[in-house]
């Protein structure tokens, strides 16, 4: 295997607030190669977005502090670079799409201007060239009548169109890695599917690496190559998408899959994961999932599970990972 495009290793981030220190990331490691889509799955507050923002370098510091770890992009550690060098990487190397495109687009500028601006500033393009390129980009993200809509303001676009414009904006400088932070959460279901298709298409066309952050298992199944499941600031399971759906290797993933609504069980009560995720200022000792885990036993309360290697690049942070997979 060639060197991965992005390698996050043992990333620790904490938020120092008045109420105490919230340990948001507790050793996150994942990697993405060119042409590959990694899905990062987890419920709200599990640290998915914080990981992404740490990679981008757009976390507000303070209150956030990176206490350990490395983020290697093309083999170079981003955390060791100067602020100016990191800024160069943003947009050109790694770009990001946000959840709510309406608030991620500046309301006082036209959509066209927001795409052109980067081309003019970073690429030194003339106004006319930048406009031409912006129309091409809007065409690529399938905005109908791109030429006519380019001078519209974000609020004149529908939700799906805004997200398309946002995608066009992040593609302007041809990034090698695209981080999509819940790109479809704010959209309705039919539009969700269109946007996911578009992202998948663009990703394979440009042979980009993509990190897809989501809490929607359905979205993941279609587009992702590999999945990292996060819980309380850790990757608890990492697996190929087919493997994961076939036989989850962590009780948390198992519970997630079980809580999906299923047509064949219509009329029955939906399964949920009982309890709440742990407070990040006060993570319980042992496995952070132990208070909610249906398989918890003595060791889970006292001992933090190590990473169990299950073969074929598959890992799980569970004392009984092998047993869980075998049961699947």
């Amino acid at each position: 295997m060639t060197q991965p495009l992005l390698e996050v290793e043992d990333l620790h981030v904490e938020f120092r607030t008045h109420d105490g220190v919230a340990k948001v990331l507790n050793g996150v490691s994942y990697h993405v190669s060119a042409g590959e889509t990694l899905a990062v799955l987890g419920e709200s507050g599990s640290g998915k977005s914080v990981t992404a923002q740490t990679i981008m370098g757009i976390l507000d510091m303070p209150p956030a502090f990176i206490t350990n770890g490395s983020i290697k992009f093309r083999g170079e550690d981003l955390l060791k670079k100067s602020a100016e060098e990191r800024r160069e990487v943003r947009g050109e190397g790694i770009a990001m799409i946000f959840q709510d495109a309406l608030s991620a687009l500046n309301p006082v500028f036209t959509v066209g201007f927001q795409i052109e601006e980067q081309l003019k500033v970073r690429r030194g393009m003339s106004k006319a060239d930048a406009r031409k390129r912006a129309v091409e980009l809007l065409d690529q993200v399938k905005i109908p009548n791109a030429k006519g809509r380019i001078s519209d303001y974000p609020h004149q676009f529908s939700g799906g169109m805004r997200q398309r414009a946002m995608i066009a904006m992040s593609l302007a400088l041809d990034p090698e890695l695209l981080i999509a932070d819940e790109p479809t959460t704010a959209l309705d279901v039919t539009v969700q599917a269109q946007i996911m298709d578009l992202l998948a298409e663009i990703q394979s066309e440009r042979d980009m690496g993509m990190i897809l952050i989501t809490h929607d298992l359905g979205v993941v199944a279609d587009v992702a190559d590999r999945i990292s499941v996060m819980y309380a600031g850790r990757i608890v399971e990492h697996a190929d998408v087919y493997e994961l759906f076939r036989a989850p290797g962590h009780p948390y993933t198992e519970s997630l899959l079980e809580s999906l609504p299923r047509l064949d069980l219509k009329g029955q009560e939906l399964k949920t994961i009982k309890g709440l995720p742990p407070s990040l200022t006060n993570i319980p000792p042992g496995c952070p999932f132990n208070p909610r885990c249906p398989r918890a036993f003595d060791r889970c309360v006292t001992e933090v599970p190590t990473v169990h290697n299950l073969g074929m690049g598959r890992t799980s942070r569970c004392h009984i990972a092998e047993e869980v997979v075998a049961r699947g």
Partner: protein
Amino acid sequence: MSDPGSVSGGTGLEAAAAAGVDQLSHVDDSSQKQRKPRSLWSDAWGELRRKPTFIISLVIILIVVLMAIWPSLFTSVDPRHANLDKSLQKPSAEAWFGYDLQGYDVYARAMYGARASLLVGIFSTILTVLIGSFVGIIAGYAKTWIDSLLSRFADIFAGIPFVLGAIVILTTLNAPNENPGVVRIVTQVVLSIAVLSWPVVMRIMRSATLVAKQQDYVKAARGLGASPMRIVFRHLLPNTIAPVLVYGTIALGAFIGAEATLAFLGIGLRPPVVSWGVMISESRDYFQSAPHMLLFPAGFVTVTVLAFVMLGDAVRDALDPKSR
């Protein structure tokens, strides 16, 4: 809300059909020709041109500005020609606004007084808005010890009562009984107003920046590699300037009033300089016997202030794309 895209697309289709061409690309081309590239300011201008309040206020302001630049266009009477025989005479066909105590023509003095009043109002406003906005946006965006430092610094100035502060500044700069020239006294009045008023703009700007900074578009701009300077002045400023503009228009009126206050106290503009403020202060003892001495300059102040407030209102609406 209308959808200009589909509207222009429709007319584009008709044009294409009329030409006997039915290729889709032609539809796009014709709709492109019809719609010029737009920017925030050109859009705002297009919006403003259609607003009656904007037109009316602009006309009034232009007249006042014209008055300030070429007062001789409006009157042929010398404002410094005193005829004590006509002291306190009521308005007549000969002198529309009557005569004041010294027998000066009130109409001529109102025309010539526009210059000083407007200069003080406009320059104080510009200076106040510039200093306040700059410090405010830096403090709001930085939000660290820089913010604390700048905010406390602004608090020091905000803590000085306006009239007291102005008295201290202006009496320190001018020795008693000294009679400074026009340029010098106008500059001094402008500076003292700005120095004592900028913390208000700073606070407005800082709070607007704090709100706007939380928006995802700031994160997105950072995420796409925009420099901090670009984010602050290109992306944040247009989103935070509206409340400052509105305050600016109100302040302009208040500053023309402040000019009158300082003139009244004998520390601001003073004769032989002619300004609306000076005229109002001169009329203070004769309001019952000669109300025209107060009413005409005061009316000019009121109408000018109203025009600026209307203008500011229209500009604010036009700068907000969502209000279209």
